[in-house]
């Protein structure tokens, strides 16, 4: 058993069956989960998220459902690739979500011990480099998992040049197709313990192991039973892809959010899925947070647009027939998702460079704090004008007063604002000129001695940062499929 743990038998790890055998051997106990179900655990919900709750899921498991068979981790928000593009421009060995390295160093020893696999999109713009970095980092610790890398989503040169409008084509910094579950399924079939992709539909990270384990029809799915299973799988993925948002984090309401216990030790959601697609959403025992009808509903409808047609590369999900049954004890049963055939076209998401911003937040204190901010703003406006600093907009908001809800936040009148202990104003310059953005911070320091009295702090002179616009398009599936590759490292 110890030898297996140190030296995974790659030639044994080709099927789900041998995986389960190894799992039973390596964990020194028979699997506590029923053989006809697969348990998925949420990894990260974005680049920068915490992996402690994923580790807790591996270590603690669930009293009734056991430990996870897969951890699936989403590292890519819509514009994360814009950040990764800058990394890659500096160093061709970068361009991936680098938190995957410390995350796997923390998780993999436990994952290997219990036979759990890892699927993530942390490859970003450079899945190859991510795979090699993970391989090297784990090898240093004596681990040699089978690592698969999925590429082919990056279509900046081959396709976007044909599709993108002239006005933004030369400013595009990335363009990637949302791939589906197929290449991940292929990677698992090749025996991968760790699958690293670039852009794939977030929920496909979770659908893929279900398709693999249960041998569900994917590209051949036509009948309602096959499509509804995929729809269930996508629903499960969507409920888990945002980590803590599926278990009581960011639960938006008045008062009741306080009843969610121990957010400091939140357990990310786990899904126990049967071969017919029926799923229980739960979380690891002894963790904080809450999985119930309300917390899951908030995640289910998060960023889905038309709930009767949530379009993914693998199936079009209709949520209007979905049923969430609160079983109590942090368990919710998910049934009734309806699927329609996958679209003929895939979505391309691109980002284009769209100018710069520079921002600074400055505070003035009592007395007359409000009026002092107004005078300081005028001092900045005057300089922008008199120095002919090119800009499109000087955006102004007052953190602590109206930054979150704009004009919908009722502001007290000036007399009351002048009695406030302090007022902070946030000024953001939007400009096409990088040098104008770089120079913005230098308009401020003299205000400390030559402006209104009792300055009470400012946020530092920010460097300019680049703004990005979002470009989306549809591309025929058959144009993309030949580019997709699954490679074992």
């Amino acid at each position: 058993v110890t030898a297996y743990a140190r030296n995974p038998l790659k030639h044994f790890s080709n099927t789900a069956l041998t995986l389960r055998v190894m799992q039973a051997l390596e964990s020194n106990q028979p699997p506590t989960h029923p053989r006809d179900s697969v348990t998925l655990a949420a990894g990260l919900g974005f680049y920068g998220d915490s992996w402690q709750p994923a580790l807790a899921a591996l270590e603690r498991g669930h009293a009734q459902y056991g430990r996870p068979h897969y951890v699936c981790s989403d590292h890519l928000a819509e514009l994360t690739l814009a950040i990764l593009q800058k990394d890659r421009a500096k160093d061709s060995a970068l361009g991936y979500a680098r938190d995957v390295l410390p995350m796997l160093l923390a998780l993999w020893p436990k994952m290997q011990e219990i036979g759990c696999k890892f699927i993530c999109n942390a490859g970003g713009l450079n899945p190859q480099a991510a795979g090699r970095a993970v391989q090297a980092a784990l090898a240093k610790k004596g681990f040699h998992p089978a690592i698969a890398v999925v590429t082919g989503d990056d279509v900046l040169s081959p396709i976007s040049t044909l599709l993108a409008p002239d006005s933004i084509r030369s400013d595009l910094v990335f363009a990637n197709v949302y791939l589906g579950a197929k290449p991940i399924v292929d990677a698992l079939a090749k025996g991968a313990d760790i699958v690293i992709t670039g852009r794939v539909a977030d929920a496909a990270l979770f659908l893929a192991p279900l398709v693999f384990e249960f041998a569900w029809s994917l590209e051949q799915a036509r009948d309602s039973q096959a499509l509804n299973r995929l729809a269930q799988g996508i629903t499960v993925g969507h409920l888990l892809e945002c980590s803590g948002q599926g278990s009581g984090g960011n639960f938006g309401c008045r008062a009741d959010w306080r009843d969610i216990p121990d957010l400091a030790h939140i357990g990310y959601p786990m899904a126990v899925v049967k071969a017919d697609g029926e799923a229980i959403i739960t979380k690891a025992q002894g963790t904080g947070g809450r999985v119930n009808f309300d917390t899951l509903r908030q995640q289910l409808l998060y960023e889905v647009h038309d709930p009767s047609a949530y379009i993914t590369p693998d199936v079009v999900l209709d949520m209007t027939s979905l049923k969430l049954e609160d079983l109590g004890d942090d368990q919710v049963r998910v049934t009734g998702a309806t699927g329609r055939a996958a679209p003929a076209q895939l979505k391309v998401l691109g980002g284009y460079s769209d100018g710069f911003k520079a921002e600074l937040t400055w505070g003035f204190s009592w007395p007359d704090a409000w009026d002092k901010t107004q005078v300081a703003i005028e001092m900045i406006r005057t300089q922008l004008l008199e120095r002919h600093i090119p800009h499109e907009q000087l955006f102004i908001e007052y953190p602590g007063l109206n930054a979150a809800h704009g004009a919908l936040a009722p502001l007290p009148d000036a007399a009351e604002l002048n009695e406030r202990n302090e007022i902070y104003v946030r000024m953001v310059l939007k400009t096409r000129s990088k040098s104008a953005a770089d120079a913005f911070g230098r308009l401020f320091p003299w205000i400390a001695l030559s402006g209104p009295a009792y300055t009470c702090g400012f946020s530092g002179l920010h460097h300019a940062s680049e703004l990005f616009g979002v470009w989306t398009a549809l591309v025929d599936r058959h144009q993309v499929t030949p580019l997709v590759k699954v490679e074992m490292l």
Partner: protein
Amino acid sequence: VTEPEKSFVQTPNLKFRLVDIAHARSGDKGDWVDFGLFAWDAAGYAVLARVVTAEAVRQHFAPWLASPSSGAPALDVTVWPLPNLLAFKIVIKNALQGGAASNLRQDNLGKAMAGALLRMPISLTDAERSAVRAHE
């Protein structure tokens, strides 16, 4: 003394707000802000079905998101009912100054905009008020 810009309209006949009967989450998708709005119970869902129309949501957000200084075009609001989840899906297009990576607001991802939705003033009949679970 410079008075702050007063674009919040007090509506004294609407004594309640969505926060009294519902919970919500919001997020960004390109330049769209995307809300889930949830009744706590069936009686609350019936009230939401009456008061949460696309036009009512548009009017609520217009002073902020459609003001000339926001630089955004006219608000485009869609509302989908989900009786199976006692919920409504709401999408407002052109709401995020072009999207999260060009939005100059501190809340560039629109995560706090669900709170702005829950500020929406609503009316409740006496019968509705006694039927809906109290979240006041």
